[in-house]
């Protein structure tokens, strides 16, 4: 087991390095650099000399391979550098945004699981009944509805029905939990619905599979209560695939909420990414992509570990 963990952790390094190479060179291919963009407003008044000086200050005059090595060497020492646009340390720039994205992702997961488990189990128990059809349609509709649009509809409904608008300025949870919840519950619901759709479908199909197993028939034959069969025998065994999709979706939420954040005016990681690309802020964009990729790979790894923990039949070499 320990060997497996070490091996998996080591295998993350080449993948992350690949991500680093791709985003580093992708950013350099984007037309226009940060210096041009920053001084674009001032037009011809900035001389070529000054532009070059600014580039030299940011280290952009070095050959690409040298810039890359410098950056990677910094990352290896956990030094992400400073944002090229604001000059602030990148860890500072990301910290607050990360907290916001994390909180939103957790809240959306809670919404999704609370919806998905009962709905999925019910649909599986009453397969092909009208209830099953209703749940399936609800789930497919969830996959089809863009969460950013659902967010707009929520805002609209609150505005028209209650004449009330959720707060548009972010309050950290530790400052005022109430204000914070009032703001974040709406995006969490909007995102959670889509998220629950994925999980509901998985719960339903996993339950359908498990309910056909011999040990369920045995449990029924023993005369166990339906409730006990469901909770102890069926649900526990159906949880593995559900856990996988929930975890992967969670990893996706950490960086993929670009549009929903825009609708609710939330300064999360997604919005920061859009801004940093627009500014051609190379260091910040690179750090963000690496962070999001790391979260994704790490969550994948945790899922695999959880498999072994939940299902003793799975053993890793």
């Amino acid at each position, binding site marked *: 087991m320990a060997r497996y963990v070490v091996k998996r952790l080591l295998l993350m390094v080449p993948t992350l390095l*690949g991500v680093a190479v791709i985003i580093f060179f992708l950013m350099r291919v984007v037309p226009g650099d940060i210096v041009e963009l920053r001084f674009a407003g001032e037009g011809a008044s900035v001389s070529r000399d000054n532009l070059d000086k600014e580039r030299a200050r940011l280290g952009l005059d070095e050959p690409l391979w040298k810039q890359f090595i410098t950056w990677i060497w910094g990352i290896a020492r956990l030094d992400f550098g400073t944002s090229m646009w604001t000059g602030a340390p990148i860890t500072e720039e990301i910290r607050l945004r990360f907290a916001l994205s994390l909180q939103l992702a957790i809240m959306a997961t809670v919404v999704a699981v609370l919806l998905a488990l009962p709905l999925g189990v019910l649909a599986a128990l009453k397969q092909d009944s009208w209830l099953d059809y209703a749940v399936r349609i609800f789930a497919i509709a969830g996959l089809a509805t863009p969460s950013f649009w659902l967010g707009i509809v929520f805002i609209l409904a609150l505005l028209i029905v209650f004449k009330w608008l959720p707060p548009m300025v972010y309050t950290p949870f530790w400052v005022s939990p109430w204000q914070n919840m009032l703001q974040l519950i709406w995006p969490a619901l909007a995102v959670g619905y889509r998220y629950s759709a994925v999980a509901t479908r998985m719960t339903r199909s996993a339950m359908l599979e498990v309910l056909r197993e011999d040990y369920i028939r045995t449990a029924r034959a023993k005369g166990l209560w339906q409730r006990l069969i469901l909770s102890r025998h069926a649900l526990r065994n159906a949880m593995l695939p559900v856990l996988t999709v929930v975890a992967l979706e969670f990893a996706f939420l950490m960086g993929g909420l670009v549009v929903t954040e825009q609708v609710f005016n939330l300064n999360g990681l997604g919005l920061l990414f859009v801004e940093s690309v627009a500014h051609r802020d190379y260091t910040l964009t690179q750090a963000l992509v690496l962070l999001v990729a790391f979260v994704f790979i790490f969550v994948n790894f945790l899922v695999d570990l959880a498999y072994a923990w939940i299902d003793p039949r799975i053993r890793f070499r």
Partner: protein
Amino acid sequence: MALARPLETVEAPPAQAGWLATSVEFCRRRPLGAVGAAIIVVMFVVALAAPVLAPYDPQLVDFAAMLARPSPAHWLGTDSFGRDVLSRLIYGSRTALIVGFVSAFVGATLGAVLGVGSAYFGGRVDLYMQRLMDIFISFPLIILALALVAILGNSIPNLITAITVPMIPRCALVIRSSALSIREMPYVDAARAAGFGHSRIILRHMLPNVMAPYLIMVTAFLGQAILLEASLSFLGLGVQEPLPAWGLMLRGAAVEFAETAPWMAIFPGVAISLSVFAFNLFGDSLRDALDPRLRTQ
């Protein structure tokens, strides 16, 4: 002869039933899929007949009718430039279908070729290919698409490229797992023994046998591509004004005037959801019909 005839008709297997009979059977056994297919057909008709169906020119600015409520003149109201929302929705279906179909087909096809090739060659090729796919999959779909749009610039072909690229590794993974078992089939050995080249074995012998997962991936990607196009257009990184596109219609003014002109924000979203919903319904039923064992998320 006279005797053999009735026997033949009785025992003829219905395997080679015409496509009409197959579709009727599909609709009867999978009502949800049939509903999805019906919506898709309607969408196609609307997109093709847009000039006939649309009551106004979708780009016609009419300041006399700004933010008009839904009325007999403008069934779904007008936007902040006085453009007819219904006409823009009708023409927007063209954008959605073109972007959706091209990127889903190209993405799934390239993915299938890579996946089958990876499974066929195995060994080191497979290992490196899988690592490369892992790297691309660790980028969230929208982030990769965003970065590509930033590099390529805004235009419909570039938008299609940006949506296609993130789909390729996702399809390659699924197809590879089905192709792994096909590689062991006797007919692949036979083809190899006959001395056929790699490309012939891959294209003629293996690809046709991953048709079921391939079709499933195409329908799944279609919905996703339409959603992604809408998201990118909403961010201002996709289709540009004054071209009509559903995601673009939700941008800016739709949110600004949400209180006074909610129709601007509601109808394009309904159009996006309904079309993706239809593709998902159809794709799901197709999956159940083609291969009940294959489960994708």
